[in-house]
Structures are given as C-alpha cells and as structure tokens.
C-alpha cells in the first residue's frame, strides 16, 4: 500500500514550550516528521508556539504558525488553511490533547479534517483510564486494580476496595503531573485533591500499588497492514514507583529471559491492536513481579514519546520519520531502514551495546520543593550513554550528567541506607558510596528493591575502584595517600579500568595523580578508545550512517575521512538555563558547516535533541561532553578545529582544556572568552571604551564581600562567577542577606569567587545578540525586557523591537555592542545585557557565545544568527554576506518564559535573578499589546477580558498603582486589594474592596482565589520570604491556573494586552510571510 494520494495538505501540531515531562524530544520527532512529509510532496502546515525549535524554522514546513496551541487559535488556522488531515501523534501530549479537543469541539468534522496516525477512538481507549482497562482486560491482560474518583469524598469511599499504598493518577495529564503515591490517609486525601485539580476532566485513578515490581517499556510500531514490530525494550533500574522520566533506564532489558521478554512482546502486539493505534509508534509500560512473574500493564502512549526518542537514539531506528511515513499510508516493508539502506524498516533492531539513560534534576533552584522521586516526573533533562558493557555505559552516563563531584558523604552507613530507600536524585551516587564502604549488594537490594543484577554490576564497579586504589571495601577510614600510584598500574589495569568506564579524572583521583598524567600514561600504554557504529543490526549488515560511540575494545570503525572537518560541541543534558535554544544553535552550526563544504562532526549526549539525530551531521559521536571524551574524538578525527560557542556553558567549560591541549578553537579565541568572563579584565575593557557599568567587586571571602558591599552600597546583585542561568544569583538588600548568601553560594561553586554588582532598581533591561567577524559587527536584534532588571533574562518576557526606549538610547546600545565585540576580539556570536536607567546605558554582562535568545531573534527577524555566526567562524566576512539592515519592524514579537512551578509542588513562583523557566513561547502581532496577549496565551496564562482582579502592590511599586488601578476600573474590572493598596486606590477615586491577607485569618484572599472568584492576580513581592502572604497567594493561583503577574511592568503590559484583546478576531501570521519569503507550495 503506497502513499495516500487522497490527502494533500497535512497539519502538524508541535508540543509547545519545553516543560517538565515534555522537552526537545518533540522537536526531534516533529522535525523528522516535517522533513518526511515535505519530501513526500505534501503541504505541511505547522503550528507550534515554541520559537526555539528547529521544526519552526521556515524551511521545515510549507507554512509555519508560531501561535498559541489552543482550540480557538488552531481552529482559526484550520479555517484559514483547510488541511485535509491532522497528524497529532508527533507533538507529545500537548498535540494529542489539542487534537482531542478539536475533535470534540466539532472543528475537525466541520472542516473535513481527518485525524491520521491515531484516530479519536484509539486516543480515547489509550488515554481514558477506564476504557483502557476494559481494552486490556478484553485481551486477557490486566492493569493494576483501580477505581476512579472525582472528589476526595468519592475517593475515600472507593478506598474500601483497595489497600494503601495507592498510586493516584490524574486523567489526561503528561508526565504523571498531579499524581503521587499515597502511603497513609492524610497524604491520600491531599494527593487526590491535587490530582482532581490537575486533571482537565477533574478525575483521578486510584491504583493498586505495584511499587517494587520491575518496570519495562516496549516501543511498538504498527502499519496499516497490521504489521507490528518492537523497536526496543527498556528496563528501568529503579523499580516501580519512580516515573520512568526520573528513573535510570537501560536498553535493551537486561534481566529478562527470552520467555519473559516474549510474553511482554506478545502483550505489546495485542495491546496496540486492541487499542487500535492504526499507524505509528506507541510506548507501552509494564510492571512485572520479580518473584511471581505476574505482569500488569501500566500505561500506553498512543504517540511518539520521550521513550521513543530514547529508543530511536538507542537503536538507530528512526521512529518519528517512519511513523510519519506510516501515517500517510506506507507499510513498514515499503520503507527502507535508513541506517543500512538495503534492508526494510519491517524488522526489529538488535543492538550489540548497552544504553543507559540518567535524568538530570534542577532541585538546587527550588529549595522548597520536595525532592523525593515519585510517579510524577520532576527531572528537566537527561543524558544517554552507550558502552559495550552495562558498567561502561553506566559510568559514561554518570559523568554525562555534568554535576560537580561531591565528596564522600558525612552521613553514617545506616543513614545512607535509609536515604536510598526513598528514591532521590542522588540515589546512585549514594549506592556507589555504600558499596565502597563495604555494604553488600544484598543489603542495598533489601532497601531499594533494585534488581540484584544491576547491584552486582555496581558492586563490580566498586570492586574495580578499590583494586585501582589498592584498598579494601570497608567503612573504616583508610590512610592517604592512596595505596597505588599511577605508575603501579599495568597496561592491563588501565585497560580494565577504562573498560569498566572510569574516566581519566576518576583514575587520577584513585591514584593521586592528575587527569593529564593519566591520559599521558594511558596513551603511552596504548590504551586508547575505539569507536563502534550504531547500526540497528549488530553488524549483520553494513551501516551507511556514521553514528558512533567509544569503547575500549579492539577494532575502530570510525575511520577518518580525507575531508576537512569541524567538530561542533553540543550542550549536554537539558537543565534550567541551558536547553533547546542551544541545541537549536548547534544544529544551525552543523547545517552551515556542511553547506560550507566541511564534514560536520557533532558530539553530544542528550538523546532528546535534534543535534543527536544521526542524519543531521556528517558524523555523530554520542559521547559525554568532558574534556577527555572530546579530546579522544578530536584525536580520532583530526579536525580543522572545534566550535564551542553554541552549546552554552558546557563546551565553554572545556574550551580552556582543549586550547591547552593544542586543539584549535574556531571562532572567539579562549583569551577573548576569558576577557569577557574575568570581571577585572572586563572592567578594564569597559573603562577603555568609556562604557558605564554598575560598580562591582569580586570577593573571595566573607570579609572581602562585606568590604566591597560597604563601598558600593546595597542592594547588590551577587553570584558565583562562571555560571549559567543565574545559578545561585540573588539580590541582597542588607548585610544579613549577604552573610547568609555567602555561606550557600560559596558552596555552590567552590573553585570560583563571588561577584558583587550594584543592583540598579527599576532599570529597563536590554538584551542584544550580535555577530562579530573581527572587523564588523552585525546586530541581530535589540530586545527590551518587560520585567525590570533583576529578573533573570531567561525568565523575563522580552520584545522585539524595543517599545519604550528612546531612539538615541537604542543607538547607544548598538554602538556599545559593536565597540565591545570588536574590543573583546569576538569571532562569532556575542550576547550583551544592558540596564538603562535615568538615560544612562550600563553594561551588565557580555557573553561571547550563542545565547538563549538566538532562536527567538532569528524567528523574529528572519536572519538566522547562528548560521551567520558559523560562516564567520569558518572565515567568511559579514560584508560579503549581504545581510539585511536591522529591519524596520512591521510586526512585534514577544517572547514569554514558561515556568515549571506547577510541576514542582512547593516552589515559590516569584521571579528573581536566578533563572527558573524551562521553556518559552512567542507571540506575533502587529502591535505590542496583542503580541503580548498572544505570548501569555501561548504560555498558558490567558488573560481575562473581564471579572475581578486582586492587587497587592509592594511599597516600592506604589507610585505605579494608581494609573494601573484607574485603567482596570475603566476596563470594567472590579478590584479587590489588600488593606493598604485598597486604601491608596480609594483615595485616588478608584473603587476597591479590601480583602484580608492570608495571615489575617479567614475569609482571606487565598480562599477567594481557590474558589475561583478572582480572574487575575497582580502581586509584586519584595525580598525572599518562605511563608509570606505572597507565597500563599501565588501557590493558590498556581493550583487554580489563574494568571498571576509578579512585576509592575508585567502588570502594565498585561493591562494593555487585555485592552487590545477585546478587539474581535484572531491575528494569524505565518513565519514565511513575516520573513518575506515565498512560501513553497507543492
């Protein structure tokens, strides 16, 4: 059955902003799908609110709408575009839910749009718990025993048929959001209540606990001729009870016999057929009782998922591409396997290596958050590592996390055993430590229920380590220096150490030497890595696609080609402050390097990304981004140089080491990076150029800090040097704050001093992205932040073009940018942040690398900055590129941050200098207020058009209160406010009803929010208080999903947006039109 010719125009929905549980894996799958559908000659209409995606680059669709992903907007696009079909299975849960909603609203029927991939009934059977249970029981399998409830009362009644502990799962949420494990009645009631709130249909599933059972996932593909294949099995090292996104997972399953595996395979085939997913990929999760082999089906995603991305990267089987082809009518045997090119896709990949994925969390940014790992996903990113053994892959994955190495724990063995009994982020580090202390695998098994096979492997790693150290596995303190020196290690010892997965740095630690010494000794002994291909078939056929991982076996398959090559370093696991925006830049760098005739080699370890799609680059090395691993690739490939400026802080951190090892850094040289990062040297540059900056100092001790503070005066912006995403960045208002800060911040980054800057209150913050070729500077865009300086730029909404800045000030910003870039010696991208106050332009910081706003700027202006920068890095001059002048903007684009608070219970939602957002959306319109309204809508904070507004304004912001109140009153809103605020409003003639604060006793404002009486909250806090009124108010808005604005500038923008959004109609813009490109139709 070849391609369907009865459909011509296909709409694809992306997954929107990056949130916990839904990251760049859907850019990867969506990009693949777009490419495939265009290649097949279909018109592709793409809707995604996230500008930081490769899929929304105008080349990847016929028409691209960066618009909010909601029913009104997408209905309007459907009405305009009239697509024949909607493919909802490649944009995560967001796309699936939106497609469901569009169907239910009758929009698809009205415009004759067919759902392809999975139809409405199949989606319902997979997603609606009770239908799912019935389907599973029809085929002789079972799901955990369960009951449905729509309220706490009903849930308590249902408790008669079930025993605690019970897993509470809200219906129709992603990443298990809102659910949890209830071990006692109290927690049961609380979790049920939260779950009912979180579920879009107000329903939760109360489920028999299978905690401690083994967890497996199978990735399944089906075509419309009913051929079914299993792409990959994945085993969770953490037993049931931890969300798979928070588990360490391994592929293929390690502990199942063939008989057991085939039972899961049979079950998977039966499930995908019964649910009726017509074509494409699904992910099915099972729990197996390790004693009785009893199997229960946990859930099924009738779509491409995070696990699909992992399975794709783990096996080389292009799940998303193939799913897209299946959706338009091909069968699996009609599609070639693009790795072998000679065999069809109707096969099951077999692999000859082990794949380990470990998650990465961001708990350090959310001190109030419960860090226990449960069925509700909390990690923000992940890495994947491949090795020839589990030990090797596990150790590579552990170092791919890029965490600062913590010393041994001070806690007692018993305390540690108690800690690991409850799943937590440090679980595996602590298990390794316990094993080093001589605790047996059996003891750890008793408290964690982790499968003994994995614990045996961990114990072997610990034994190897002890051997290398010349020590015993024991709890007692052993004398320094270590028992064995580096020189004592034979070639065999070194080889075994490397095969076990130890890094040079770790071996250096064991032997009291340095990483460089270990590297030299290892190379002298001939212990160097070889690279093996990922080929889907365990070498049975020749692989055409060069996708490699390192190991210490015999044969090297990654033979160097004759072509001139560049290596591009990726950004590693997603984390807050370093996410998809950097992968976007890396992908552009790869594409451009290829266009310029180079062989582009990608090194990265994040399986969610487009950059680790093996056909984006000429060669992909799936490796940790450490100095050692990168140097090894460099030695194998002998490139012209390495590009480090697109992957965020990760490649920059190792740039110095690469440079010292004699590896050419392409683009901005190491010294220029240092010049921008070193406060003292940077200050010199600014003085020389006559550019203002807030007074600052650098302190290496508390005493120094207090001295500096006395000199500069409070408030101060304080932070450790060399950080990204404002890690540990804070504003301190007095000496007490500063003292408290130094104690925690020094810990945050022990090797580096603390930076103190005078904090400019109420300044306007400006961001500039520019490219410099050493002679000339091209300004990508001058962006104005909506929130005032002090809110991390990553969390602040920002606008292109600037909306309230005098032209001469913008010119001064441009001038400063050019001067700075040239003076620093930047070759490539630079991002500079400015604060403008009282007509003075201050430089806050300059980063000589790609920034997180590069994709936004590129989407807004149509000039792909990272591509321009890559050409410059490779030697082209800006003058030769025929770039447009910074355009006179016929439209306004607003970028808004998306915050993870709703997924991290307990987190304070106040914005500050430490970045907290995980993703972003863009709003496009002809005016600022409408663009802002669309950005808010895209971020899930749709502003009300009428109703009741609650105002609580801190004293510092009071001057702005009256105009705001007047405007709201004019717009017909009723106003409630805290006593002080209400009084001030009344005096100015604005009617406002006072309401009690949370701490003033019931009835208070929090109740009003929780009962849905309030439609918008404006609450501007100051300082950091854990249990203040503001905290409770903001938590309440989070639970009810009511928009909450925490800055005055944000409130003013919101009011303008509300006013504008009362105009009828929805503005829609395609990116192709905005960029003045002819749309390619087929």
């Amino acid at each position, binding site marked *: 059955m070849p391609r369907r010719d009865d459909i011509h125009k296909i709409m694809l929905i992306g997954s929107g902003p990056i949130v916990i549980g839904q990251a760049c894996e859907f850019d990867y799958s969506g990009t693949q799908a777009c490419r495939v559908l265009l290649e097949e000659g279909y018109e592709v209409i793409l809707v995604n609110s996230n500008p930081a995606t490769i899929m929304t680059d105008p080349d990847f669709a016929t028409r691209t709408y960066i618009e909010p992903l909601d029913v009104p907007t997408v209905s309007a696009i459907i009405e305009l575009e009239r697509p024949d079909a909607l493919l909802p299975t490649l944009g995560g849960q967001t796309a699936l839910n939106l497609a469901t909603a569009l169907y239910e609203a009758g929009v698809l029927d009205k415009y004759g749009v067919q759902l392809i991939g999975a139809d409405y009934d199949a989606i319902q059977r997979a997603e609606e718990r009770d239908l799912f249970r019935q389907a599973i029981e029809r085929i002789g399998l079972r799901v955990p025993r369960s009951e449905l409830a729509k309220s706490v009362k009903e849930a308590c009644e249902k408790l008669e048929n079930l025993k605690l502990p019970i897993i509470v799962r809200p219906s129709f949420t992603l990443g298990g959001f809102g659910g949890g494990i209830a071990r006692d009645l109290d927690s049961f009631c609380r979790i049920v209540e939260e779950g009912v709130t979180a579920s879009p249909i107000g329903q939760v599933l109360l489920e028999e606990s299978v905690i401690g059972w083994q967890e497996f996932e199978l990735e399944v593909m089906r075509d419309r001729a009913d051929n079914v294949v299993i792409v990959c099995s994945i085993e969770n090292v953490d037993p049931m009870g931890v969300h798979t996104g928070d588990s360490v997972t391994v592929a293929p399953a390690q502990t199942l016999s*063939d008989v057991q595996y085939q039972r899961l395979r049979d079950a998977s085939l039966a499930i995908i057929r019964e649910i009726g997913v017509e074509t494409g990929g699904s992910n099915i999760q099972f729990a197996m009782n390790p004693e009785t082999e009893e199997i229960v089906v946990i859930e099924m995603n009738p779509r491409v998922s995070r696990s699909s991305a992992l399975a794709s990267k783990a096996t080389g089987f292009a799940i998303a591409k193939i799913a897209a082809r299946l959706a338009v009518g091909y069968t699996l045997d*009609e*599609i070639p396997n693009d790795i072998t090119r000679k065999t*069809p896709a109707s096969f099951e990949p077999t692999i000859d*290596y082990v794949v380990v994925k470990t998650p990465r969390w961001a708990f350090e940014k959310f001190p109030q958050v419960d860090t226990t790992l449960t069925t509700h996903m909390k990690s923000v990113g992940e890495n994947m590592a491949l090795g020839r053994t589990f030990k090797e892959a596990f150790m590579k994955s552990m170092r791919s996390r890029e965490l600062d190495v913590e010393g041994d724990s001070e806690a007692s063995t018993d305390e540690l055993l108690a800690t690991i009994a409850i799943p937590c982020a440090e679980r595996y580090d602590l298990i390794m430590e316990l094993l080093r202390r001589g605790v047996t695998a059996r003891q750890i098994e008793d408290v964690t229920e982790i499968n003994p096979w994995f614990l045996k492997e961990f114990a072997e790693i610990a034994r190897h380590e002890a051997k290398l150290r010349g020590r015993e596995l024991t709890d007692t303190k052993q004398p320094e220096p270590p028992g064995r020196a580096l020189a004592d290690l034979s070639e065999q010892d070194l080889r075994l150490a490397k095969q076990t997965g130890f890094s040079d740095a770790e071996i250096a630690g064991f032997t009291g030497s340095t990483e460089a010494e270990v590297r030299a000794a290892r190379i002298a002994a001939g212990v160097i890595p070889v690279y093996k291909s990922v080929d889907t078939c365990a070498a049975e056929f020749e692989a055409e696609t060069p996708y490699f991982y390192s190991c210490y076996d015999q*044969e090297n398959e990654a033979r160097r080609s004759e072509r001139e090559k560049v290596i591009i370093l990726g950004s590693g696991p997603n984390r807050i402050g370093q996410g998809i925006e950097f992968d976007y830049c890396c992908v552009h760098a790869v594409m451009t390097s290829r266009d310029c005739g180079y062989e582009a080699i990608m090194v990265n370890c994040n399986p969610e990304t487009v950059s680790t799609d093996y056909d984006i680059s000429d060669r992909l090395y799936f490796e940790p981004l450490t100095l050692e691993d990168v140097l090894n690739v460099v030695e194998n490939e002998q490139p012209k140089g390495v590009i480090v400026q697109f992957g965020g802080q990760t490649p920059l951190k190792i740039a110095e080491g690469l440079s010292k090892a004699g590896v050419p850094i392409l683009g901005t040289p190491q010294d220029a990076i240092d010049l921008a990062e070193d406060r003292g040297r940077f200050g010199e540059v600014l003085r020389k150029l006559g550019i203002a900056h807030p007074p600052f100092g650098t302190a290496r001790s508390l005493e120094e800090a207090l001295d500096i503070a006395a000199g500069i005066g409070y408030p101060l912006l304080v932070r450790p040097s060399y950080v990204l995403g404002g890690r540990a960045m804070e504003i301190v208002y007095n000496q007490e704050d500063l003292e408290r800060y130094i104690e925690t911040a020094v810990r945050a980054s022990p090797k580096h001093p603390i930076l103190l800057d005078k904090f400019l209150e109420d300044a306007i913050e400006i961001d500039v992205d520019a490219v410099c070729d050493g002679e000339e500077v091209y300004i990508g865009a001058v962006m104005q932040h909506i929130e005032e300086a002090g809110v991390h730029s990553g969390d602040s909404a920002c606008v292109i073009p600037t909306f309230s800045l005098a032209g001469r000030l913008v010119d001064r910003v441009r001038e400063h940018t050019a001067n700075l870039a040239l003076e620093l010696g930047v070759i490539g991208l630079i991002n500079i942040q400015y604060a403008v106050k009282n007509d003075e332009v201050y430089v806050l910081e300059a980063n000589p690398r790609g920034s997180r706003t590069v994709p936004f700027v590129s989407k807004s202006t149509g000039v792909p900055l990272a591509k321009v920068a890559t050409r410059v890095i490779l030697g082209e001059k800006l003058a030769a590129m025929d770039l447009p002048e910074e355009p006179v903007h016929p439209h306004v684009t607003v970028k808004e941050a998306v915050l993870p608070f709703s997924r991290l219970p307990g987190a304070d939602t106040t914005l500050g200098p430490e970045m907290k957002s995980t993703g972003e959306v863009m709003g496009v319109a002809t005016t600022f207020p409408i663009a802002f309204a669309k950005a808010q809508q895209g971020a899930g904070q749709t502003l009300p058009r009428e109703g009741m507004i609650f105002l609580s304004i801190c004293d510092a912001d009071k001057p702005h209160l009256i105009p705001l109140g007047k405007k709201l009153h004019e717009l017909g809103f009723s106003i409630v406010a805290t006593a002080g605020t209400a009084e001030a409003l009344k005096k100015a003639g604005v009617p406002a009803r006072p309401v009690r604060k949370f701490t003033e006793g019931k009835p208070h404002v929090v109740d009003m929010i929780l009962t849905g009486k309030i439609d918008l909250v404006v609450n501007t806090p100051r300082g950091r208080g854990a249990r203040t009124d503001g905290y409770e108010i903001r938590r309440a808005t989070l639970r009810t999903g009511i928009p909450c604005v925490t800055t005055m500038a944000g409130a003013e923008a919101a009011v303008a947006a509300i006013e504008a959004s009362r105009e009828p109609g929805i503005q829609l813009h395609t990116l192709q039109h905005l960029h003045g490109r002819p749309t390619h139709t087929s």
Partner: protein
Amino acid sequence: MKNQESGNKQPEAPAAVLLEDGTLYHGHGFGSPGAVFGEIVFNTGMTGYQEVVTDPSYHGQMVTFTYPLIGNYGVSTTANESDQVHSRAVIVREAHNLARNSTAEQGWIDWLSLQEVTGVAGIDTRALTRRIRSEGAMRAAVYWGDFSEAEMAARLEDTPSMAGQDLASRVTCAEPYEIEFLKGKHRVVVIDYGIKRSILKQLGAAGCNVTVLPAWATAEDVLAAEPEGVFLSNGPGDPAPLDYAVRCVEGLLGKVPVFGICLGHQILSMVLGLKTYKLKFGHRGVNHPVKNLERDRVEITSQNHGFAVELPEALAARLEARQTGGGSGEDTGTSAGPGKTFFEAPSAKELRLDTAFGAATISHLNLYDGTVEGIRCLDLQAFSVQYHPEASPGPHDSRYLFEDFVNDIVINKVKQA
C-alpha cells in the same frame, strides 16, 4: 546454586579465538578449559542464549553472541532445547553468572562448566562478527589453556568444513519414541534430524501426539506408524548429502500432510527439485522480517540456518526487478523517493513453479536478502518454512503454522472419512 557468583570470581585465564584466515582475538576463558574446533558463526539475538546453545542445529558450530552481555538471567532446565549443549564453544564479550531471575536454577558460567563447554569472554565480538560478515562463516579454533597458536592453526587445518557434512544422523534420536500430549488428538510422525523440544511442545499445543523416528527412517517406516501428518524437523549441517531423507519424503508426499521446518524445509524443497546452497554467513537471530506472500503479512522470525534453498532462476529475475533500493543520501533516508516504495513484494502467484509433485509456490520470502523462507505444494498437502515458527528463542509471530498443519490434517481426515 542460587546467588553464587563463583564464575565471575575466577582469575582471568588467557583464552583465544583463531580464525582460519589467521585472525586472532584474545580474551579470557570461562566454562571449561580446552581446545575446540568447528565452524564459527554469530547469533544476533539479545536473549535466549541457553535455547541457542542447546539447539541441535548448532551441532559442531561455535557461537559468537553479538549481544555483549550473556548469562544475565541464569539458566533454567525448562529453557533447554535438547538434553545437551550442542555448540562446541561460546564466544562472548562479557559472561555473567548471577542466577537471581525467578526462573534461574543455576548460573550460566557454572552451568557451562558442568556441561564442559569452553567459553571465551572479553572478545571484541563486534569486530569478530564484522570479520565473519565480510569473510563468511569459517572454521576456527577456540582455546583456553596451554596451547600454542601454531598447534591450534595446524589442528584447525584438519577440521572438516561444514559443507557436505551429514550432521543430522549424529544428533537424531537413536530409538523411536512417543509423546502423548494433554490436548493430543492427531497422530503425527516426527522425523528427527535434530529436533528442538519447543517444536514438539508446539505440535502438542496444536493438538498432536507425536511418534519421533530417527533421521534415517524410510517412507515405509513412517507409514507403518499410520500417521495423520508427518513433520520434518530442523537439524544441523548440509542438507545436500541427506539422500536418505529425500527418498523418504518422496514416498510420503501426497499420502499424508507434511510440514517441515529449517532442515526439514530444505529436504522438502530438494524433493520438489530445488537446490540448496551455503549462505555466506547464515541467518542466526530473532529479528529477520519474513513476508508471508499468501497472507501479505510481515512476520518477525527466529532464524538459525547456514544453508538455504535456491530460488529458480526465472523467479529470481522476477524478484530482482522489485527492489528499488534505499535512499540516495540527499533525502531523509527512509525513502525510496517521493511516493515510491522500497520493495513491493510479489504475490505468491507470481512465484509459482512446477515440480514433479505438481504446482508449488514460494510462500515466504526473507525481506533482508530475498532468500526463500517458505514453500507450499498447491496440488497436495505439504509446506515448510526455513525459519523457526516455534521460536524459543524469538518472537511468536508465526505459530499459526502449527495450526495450519493441524488444519491440513483435519481436512485430510474429513476427506478420507
């Protein structure tokens, strides 16, 4: 024996794999020390190591597992495909001995030691596999102990090659035996060329009681047992020298429904006038796609064979034209070009052939390399497949073939009644 990890704690003793082309791979020994010789092959399955090494079809061969970790879930009596290990040696990247899976009775390394099987671990099995892929399955020496490379090379020279060897007669049962199954309703004679236990189990599950006869049974021997169906089993070695088996089956066709698997398929094909040949490195694994041309469905199959049935020239030419080939490199790779399909399988009708026993059709094709995976007689009741529908190890996609066989038996019974 549970919980013991003795195998992993043995000091690492040097061991090696020497190929007939002179390539040497160093590793360390496990299982039982010694020097063994035979044909070296690779299996790409990620589970099922115990089923593989006890499968009589591996008799005389040395198995390289491409999955690097072997032994993870221990060993269980129920997974045995025969009462002994047939592969002469086991070559792995990393051997495991933990026996903590709920079904495990013993550690893999301990079990191999007791079975006196020589194992080599620490081998770059991917490099070895690539060598076998490019040079073909070849003879090799696997040794662990005090042996010189020169001595091994000399003894390797004397090892007979697989081609032309009748190994079925070495692994067949010495005496006939019978098994009655719970659901058994039909009398089936199984000719044992090296049968796997799971085939007998599947026949039983489909409703057969079986009488197992040795490989050299004649048509008269078979018919004397008054079978309602005859099953031709799998087995090791080259089908070409098995004249006695061909003569036997010639005497059965048309008289009783016949079903063959693997070597049994090759024998039926030879009876129908087709030739067999040695594949470069064989098919061994659990992931090969096979298209059932009669039902237009793809099955993921369990495979274990070094020889295959040759497609008659005229049919081969017809097939050749079907393959459009993979992507050009410019596109996303998963395409044969916009709107084009990579491979359009012919219908079974297009692959008909005339035989001494009437019309027959190629019923199954391997989608990896277009080799013949099944044949069916159209004028009488006989069919066979090259792959292993009983799986074990491997997917269960093709178990319907046992039902098909029983259907033939039932239809035949009805006809005769």
